[in-house]
């Protein structure tokens, strides 16, 4: 059952068509990864799913309803997005940020409610940030900062969490930390996760569903083991890759040369 679905969406930015009639379905309660070369329209597709970019043609549905029908607030209660390297004021603490996640649940005056504190504490607990809640965001390491942003998104209490390259700029340890956190949130909270990601092996290891985009068209979507192959990397990324089987039984691909 797909919770979020793009139906033949075309996206134009100024006069340039970025996405051409792309259809994509996000299965409920699963982890979906969107992969593709730089500039293929992955992030644009993600932002169309989050209603940040409007569709020129086609539409996006959430549980079968056109996302344009929801108010801004209603939609933010259902779906949270973390864009790449978001900005924040230098004096913002982790807790301040997590509290901002409660914004879509507040009334027009933005008054804080008693429940907000409980939700913020829960979100900080889920991301293991309770001990750092009074730290300034600007003094955290990259991995900790990413967890703080995820705490904010959780405080939105969404059914779907979209992430744009959540592990870019992180070292391998922090990359795994973020991926395992997302895996845990998906399993324990049945949170649907959609991420744009560059690391093909992370995509294979941690996703239930993968969509491959190239030059604004959907190449294929399906189960990672079935669709992510050396041939796909050759067709889409123009690299020759060797296939391995990891100790946990999952396949892994190592690019060894460019396609000549």
């Amino acid at each position, binding site marked *: 059952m797909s919770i979020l679905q793009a139906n033949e969406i075309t996206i134009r*930015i100024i006069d340039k068509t970025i996405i051409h009639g792309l259809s994509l379905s996000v299965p409920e309660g699963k982890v979906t990864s969107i992969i593709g070369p730089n500039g293929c329209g992955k992030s644009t597709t993600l932002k169309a799913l*989050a209603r940040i970019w409007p569709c020129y043609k086609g539409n996006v549905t959430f549980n079968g309803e056109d996302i344009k029908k929801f*108010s801004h607030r209603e939609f933010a209660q259902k779906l949270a997005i*973390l864009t790449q390297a978001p*900005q924040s004021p230098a*004096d913002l603490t982790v807790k301040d940020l997590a509290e*901002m996640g409660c*914004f*879509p649940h*507040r009334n027009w005056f933005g008054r804080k409610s008693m429940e907000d504190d409980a939700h913020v504490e829960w979100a900080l607990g889920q991301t293991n940030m309770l001990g750092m809640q009074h730290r300034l965001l600007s003094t955290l390491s990259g991995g900790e900062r990413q967890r703080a942003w995820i705490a904010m998104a959780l405080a939105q209490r969404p059914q779907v969490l979209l992430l744009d390259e959540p592990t870019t700029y992180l070292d391998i340890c922090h990359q795994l930390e973020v991926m395992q956190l997302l895996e845990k949130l998906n399993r324990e909270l049945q949170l649907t996760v959609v991420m744009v990601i560059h690391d093909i092996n992370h995509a294979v290891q941690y996703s239930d569903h993968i969509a491959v985009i190239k030059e604004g068209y959907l190449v294929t979507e399906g189960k990672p083991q079935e669709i992510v192959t050396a041939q796909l990397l050759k067709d889409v990324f123009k690299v020759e890759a060797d296939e391995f089987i990891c100790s946990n039984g999952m396949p892994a691909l190592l690019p060894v040369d460019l396609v000549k």
Partner: protein
Amino acid sequence: MTNNQADTLERIERFGISRTAWRLSVMAAFAMLAFLGAFLSLTKGSADISLAQIINILSNPTLEPQSQIIWNIRMPRTIVGALVGVNLAIAGAVLQAVMRNPLADPHIIGISSGAGLAGVTIMILFPTLEYLITPAAFIGAMLAAVCIYILAWKNGIKPVRIILAGVAVSAFLSAGISGLMIFYSDRVHGALMWMVGGLAARSWPHVSIILPYAIAGVLLAFIGAAYLNILQLGDEMARGLGVNVEVTRIAMTAVAALLAASAVSVVGLLGFVGLIVPHAARLIIGSDYRYLMPASGLLGIAVVTLSDTFARVVFAPVELPVGIIMAFIGAPFFLFLLRREI
């Protein structure tokens, strides 16, 4: 925003003062400064009047000269100064968040020039319609704001484009003001004082002009504080959190234009308050708008009333327009900010 500032705030935490306690003490200190400003503005001048006398005069007004000075000269002037300070400071604070640019203020981005051109046009060309100055200034400010938006709009709004468009619009409108003043050089005296921005001879009618706009604008700005906090995370994150970014930007710019225009229509083109006050407040209290907004308002009262008293007293019997004092304090502060932040 700099790392310096983040360090300062973290250090404050380490001293064992909680952040809320710190913010409330800063707010109390600003409130005291505002009272001090208002107090000096009432007591100092060509006739020094003591606090005891003022309390006596306020509780039972008489026809004696001192009572007349307080009731008809100093009191309204202090109130106008305080309201102008609040309006300009809050307009600046709002614009800095909306444009996501530390250099935004009503003066620099052209909203004041729009109000100014409309005001000067009425003063010089239609002096009989003087009662229309405030609505005209508001319309001028809004038109300037709309112009800036249209010029800066290209598939969304970028803060840098708004500032650049604002500077261009401001230069264009200022040229219009200068042109008018040269063509009608026989009528410019009133307009000249107005261009610098001053509180001389402001009285009760001016209070009643600015008060309703100030109340409405300040209330709307306070309601907007939570939205402005979210806007600081960037447009895309703000949208993700359920903020209608375009509507919020336009509505809050209109609020800032309303506040700035009502101030401009009463005291003229008083610059730098909208720039330096929210900045100084932000350096001390942090960037959470729920605290920054009232703190800016209080500091605005203090800065304008103190500067005006200074302008009246220091070169007595000559009275300088407060705008000159503000520019003398404001310009170096502006350069300080430039070196610190950019």
